[in-house]
């Protein structure tokens, strides 16, 4: 949100939209509507597989039916609103620059770093995985001082391992460093 120039009012739209006439629909929102419909539909399907207990007049199905049903309805409303040119206000923030297009490559790199973390956390242990997580994320975000990033990451991960172990009594996975830490 351009809070600097328009402190008092919310700008209804941040992305550069065609000036005159109805703005082109935000096509990605159709995708969101389909996703919502899918979630709603699956919630209803899932509810039909539940058994109603004896002496339970409502059962575990009532809430999912209502939630799934409303979700389907909202998906339709969103699709209609999208066709009529309705757009969401993308969220602003201190470090967010909405005047440029989105940089999805960076996001993909970060997701890859997290997937690596999930895959190795039990095996390599928090001390190593955490350090790689920090260095990998910093690199994805544009830092080019790899050695320093790894060092900072190692200090953070080993430090947090010991802080949790001795301070809170929680042993984060030691992984292959078992016995060394």
């Amino acid at each position, binding site marked *: 949100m351009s809070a600097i120039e328009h402190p008092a009012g919310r700008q209804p739209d941040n992305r550069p939209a065609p000036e005159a006439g109805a703005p082109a629909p935000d096509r990605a929102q159709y995708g969101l509507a389909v996703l919502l419909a899918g979630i709603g539909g699956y919630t209803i399907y899932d509810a039909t597989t539940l058994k109603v207990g004896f002496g*339970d007049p409502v059962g575990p199905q*009532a809430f999912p039916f209502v939630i799934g049903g409303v979700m389907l309805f909202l998906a339709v409303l969103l699709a209609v609103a999208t066709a009529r040119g*309705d757009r969401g206000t993308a969220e602003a923030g201190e470090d967010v620059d909405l005047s440029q297009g989105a940089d999805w490559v960076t*996001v993909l790199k970060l997701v890859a770093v997290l997937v690596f973390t999930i895959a190795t*956390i039990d095996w390599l242990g928090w001390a190593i995985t955490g350090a790689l*997580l920090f*260095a990998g994320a910093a690199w994805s975000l544009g830092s080019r001082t790899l050695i320093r990033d790894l060092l900072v990451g190692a200090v953070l991960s080993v430090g947090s391992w010991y802080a949790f172990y001795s301070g809170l*009594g929680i042993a984060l996975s030691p992984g292959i460093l078992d016995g060394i830490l």
Partner: protein
Amino acid sequence: MDNLDLLMGGLDAALSPENLLYAALGVVLGTFVGVLPGIGPAMAVALLLPVTFGLGPTQSFIMFAGIYYGGMYGGSTTSILLNTPGESSSVMTALEGNKMAKKGRAAQALATAAIGSFVAGTIGTLLVAFFAPTLADIGVEIGAPSYFAIVVLAMVLVTSVLGDSKLRGFISLFLGLTIGLVGLDLNTGQARLSFDQPLLADRLDIVVVAVGIFALGEALWVAAHLRRKPLEVIPVGQPWMGRSDWRRSWKPWLRGTALGFPFGAVPAGGAETPTFLSYVLERRLAKGREFGEGAIEGVAGPEAANNASAAGTFVPLLAMGIPVTATSAVMLAALTGYGIQPGPQLMSTESDLVWTLLASLLLGNALLLVLNLPLAPLWAKLLTIPRPYLYAGILFFASLGAYAANLQAFDVFLLLVFGLVGLMMRRFGLPVLPLILGVILGPLGETRFREALTISGGEVSGLFDEALAVVLYVIAALAIVVPLVLGALRRRDPAQEKERMLV
């Protein structure tokens, strides 16, 4: 007075040297995390939840109280020194606060924010100590139908008051309700929406959901839109106020408190509305003098309103077990993590804990003032932290928090999933608060819903057989219908509307 005695007892418990240390640690950590750009109070509390895992309930709440106020104060420091508010509630502070900073009065802006927060927080907490027990007494009396109606009303109000698109608010709310369904049904023990995964059937850890949506979602969103040139940070000296600053500040502090507390106490969408009202009020009363050029009243009022409303949210939280802001939703999650059942009976069953918590809030508030006035120049330095390190750090600590909860890699996977949900929500302008409330209030509401219908033998009329419930439904319906009708009548841009009110 009875309540005052209990509060004194709580203060006694909170004032041991060990507890004071936890409170101070909480304030420092909370401010540290809250000052970091891109991190608001809710995210600060969610990220710091794991730090309290090994502590007992009392100590962790004392620390929480510090984190909470520290995080809020950190947020206002950012908005004054950077002019880019991270939270909707500090938009109004940034208006005059940043202009003051540009005029070389950053020290006074920070001081009036800190002292105003202290005044408002203290008055607010005392009001909570006064109102919450009374409300809880009423709360114990009301039946399942009315309780369910309160949950519905809270969800409707929060969803329809916030943001400019009600459709998006409700989408977000129902996404949250769907997430709240995942896991074992509490009555029949059947797994819902669990894809035959035993780890999902175990119900989702709310910490993982909150950290994913708030912290990871935000980090990924910022990564997609990272500002290439760094923001200009205004240097700041020791905060202090001159005689005229005091004279101009104390009335706005009190007026802001009076506006903020009721808005926090009734579920009406947190601090956005009262801070806005306070700003408008101060501007009117000052007859425009210096407003727009950095008027201290414009910082003092909204900051006090912000903190008073934060204190006010403890009334429904403690008396009814109903959170109305993202931060209080996370705190409620922490409560349940200790096996404490939130609800009207909380004040009687966990009386010691509640009063210690209230006393800790007072204490945290005072410590905030003592620690943060001298430390302000140091906090300002944090704003210049290199962005790759900042967001890599958020990823690191978010993963650490998710992993530390149960020591399962699966939780880090869930973190990633909810991080992507959070990213999607920011891309499509879906507000985050209704989702978190849906996750928390959904299961709470369902329990009462089924209770009410079990009593009535499945008759839908069982939901309406209490007068209070009917009244609450009428209010909820009005909250949806009235703005729609007004909007249709006026057909005006809401932005213009707000601007018109400001002039």
